[in-house]
């Protein structure tokens, strides 16, 4: 009731008189409505027996518009699929193609797909433990008063446009991490990931992944935090009552409960990293190879970065080839997101769509 009163305060204007009086079951004033309330069972019954409920014109228009809006969304998505497929088909042949240059489409797209997945996976490996740590810190370690503020600070990261991340990654981060790369390369060069000739600029795939990791931190933290907060209070208190330390309580009561949520958070974050364009485009010096070396200046190219870089110069069938790679990207992200959603929907209390 308290909620209702408050809401009536918000819209203080009384409901205006209705214009379509025909279909109102004989009620024209609110006083008859009052009578109706005293004897609620009878009138609807009578209506049912005499004639079916009247469809009001206003209602039909309004529900029709609402349905139409929904259908537009379905149409747009169908159009995305149809147009992308239709426009990619000419791009699959390597005749007269400035982008493929006598390679088959598969030869062209596999290194790019590898680059996409590789960069995103590294970002996920870096971001996942940190995101889980932050989420735990906010939900179980930080003082209650600060928790909301700290959450807001992390959300600020999500508000930064990706092109700004790109600028920061290319001009600030790359220079900062380059000495570390040189050191890693010198001392741990025998390890395949750190082998090769270390880049002198720091514009390597590891830097790109670091920027990606920062960009996916907020979404992963937000979902993990929600899941951790939903862990059953009684289990936590029971664990503490048995003498568990805080970490043991988290390990026994919170983490097992949150496992599914954490996995889906990671998948959603991965989906975001796969489609991220600008930061990677600006940070990475690309060469389109398949290579697991993290510190060299010849790096694999993710699909979005490749599209952004090649698009301005592409013409003819080359454009269609780029659209085809975009379709591949779409399918990959769709699969990753679908798996994440399937896990989320098993427990529908939380959703990652915000």
């Amino acid at each position, binding site marked *: 009731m308290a*909620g209702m009163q*408050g*809401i009536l*305060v918000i*819209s203080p204007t009384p*409901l205006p008189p*209705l214009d379509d009086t025909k279909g109102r*079951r004989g009620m024209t004033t*609110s006083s008859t409505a009052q009578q*109706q309330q005293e004897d609620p069972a009878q009138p609807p019954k009578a209506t049912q027996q005499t004639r079916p409920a009247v469809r009001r014109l*206003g209602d039909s*228009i*309004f*529900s029709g518009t*609402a*349905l*139409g*809006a*929904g259908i537009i*969304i379905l149409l747009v998505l169908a*159009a*995305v699929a149809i147009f*992308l497929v239709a*426009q990619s088909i000419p791009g699959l042949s390597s005749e007269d193609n400035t982008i493929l240059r006598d390679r088959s489409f598969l030869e062209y797209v596999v290194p790019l797909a590898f680059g996409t997945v590789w960069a995103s996976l590294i970002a996920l490996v870096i971001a996942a*433990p*940190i995101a889980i740590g*932050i989420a735990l*810190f*906010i939900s179980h*370690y930080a003082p209650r008063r600060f928790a909301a503020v*700290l959450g807001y600070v992390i959300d*600020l*990261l999500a*508000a*930064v*446009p990706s*092109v*700004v991340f790109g*600028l*920061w990654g290319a*001009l600030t981060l790359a220079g900062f991490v380059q000495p570390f790369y040189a050191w890693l390369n010198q001392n741990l060069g025998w390890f395949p990931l750190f082998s090769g000739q270390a880049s002198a600029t720091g514009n390597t795939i590891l830097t790109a992944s670091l920027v990606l990791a*920062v960009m996916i931190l907020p979404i992963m*933290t937000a979902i993990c935090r929600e899941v951790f907060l939903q862990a059953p209070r009684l289990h936590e208190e029971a664990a503490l009552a048995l003498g568990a*330390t*805080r*970490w043991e309580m988290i390990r026994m009561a919170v983490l097992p409960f949150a496992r599914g949520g954490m996995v889906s958070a990671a998948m959603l974050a991965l*989906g975001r990293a796969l*489609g991220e*364009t*600008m930061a990677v485009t*600006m940070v990475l010096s690309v060469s389109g190879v398949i290579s697991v070396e993290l510190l060299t200046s010849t790096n694999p190219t993710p699909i979005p970065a490749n*599209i*952004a870089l090649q698009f301005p110069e592409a013409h003819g069938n080359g454009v269609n080839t780029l*659209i085809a790679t*975009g379709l591949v*990207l779409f399918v990959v*992200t769709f699969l990753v*997101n*679908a798996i994440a959603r399937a896990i989320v929907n098993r427990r529908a209390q939380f959703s990652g*769509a915000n």
Partner: protein
Amino acid sequence: MTAVVTRGTSSLAAGRLPKWATWVTLVAAMVVSAVVFALINMGSAASDFNVAGTLVVGAILYLVVIYVLSRLSESPRHAIDRFVTALVTSAFIIAIIPLVSLLYTVVSSGIERFDIEYFSSSMRGVVGTGGGAIHAVWGTILITLAATIISVPIGLMTSIYLVEYGGRGRIAKAITFFVDVMTGIPSIVAGLFIFAVFSIFLGPGASIGIMGALALAVLMIPVVVRSSEELLRIVPNELREASYALGVPKWRTIVKVVLPTTIAGIMTGIMLSISRVIGETAPLLLTAGFTTSLNMNLFDGRMMTLPVFVYNQYQNQGTNPDEAVARAWAGALTLILIVMALNLAARLIAKIFAPKLRG
């Protein structure tokens, strides 16, 4: 060791480190680390002092010391607990570092060109120094406005359908599923889609402002749907039933009762979705293109936008790289200010117009 630690405390607290122990250990670890780095730095200037290294080594030192201390005086279980507490806290601090660094860099480098000339001139005919981003600012405003005008009615009506009309029907389920799919569309694919559509109708290579707006709308609609759907769902059913009981038609109930109740939340959601698409670069790069002069007509010719401007200045630095990069930073600063203002406005709207639950 135990005797030393528990001296002067009650028997209940026996076997525990006192509260101040963690702070003392932390300060001690940092001091030791600072001294070590100062000794290494002896020969060179004070400005060469390695702050990052000091903090990292200090943190690692703290992790080790607190673990050993706790293991000796408390128990291995407590030692692990303290170790994890330190780890979790440092995870948070690690995440703050890039945020602070980014904001600091953007503000300090962006302020250089954040002047009147920047907001009064375009890049038309500018080769080296000078020039501004007024064309990009206007482009961003117009394109984002158009995207909002397209996506808010569609998004809002869809969420009304899902909550008020669709129920658990097949169409509603399909829409929910595909809205989820749409949230996951990579932004560059949205740009490719609009490009593909327009290149069929207008021939290849078309670049028009409204194409950018449509691409942004594709990204914005699902966000609007999701946020307003969630808000419409929390409107208590009693309100709707009270309205129906007064004989009010369903559509008037929605317009006069349901929407006014949630309007603050919906506005907040819209503001946040605007702030999300206003920084999008990739789709605009493919659709609205780039230009150096001011274009106020959404339906004719290329339009520059702020994110594309930043990208373009960085990528094609031209004859005077320092100037171009300075313009890019100023653009980044403008973008961040716009996004922060939108976020702040969203929060204010939510606070001022939120339904008063008590009283």
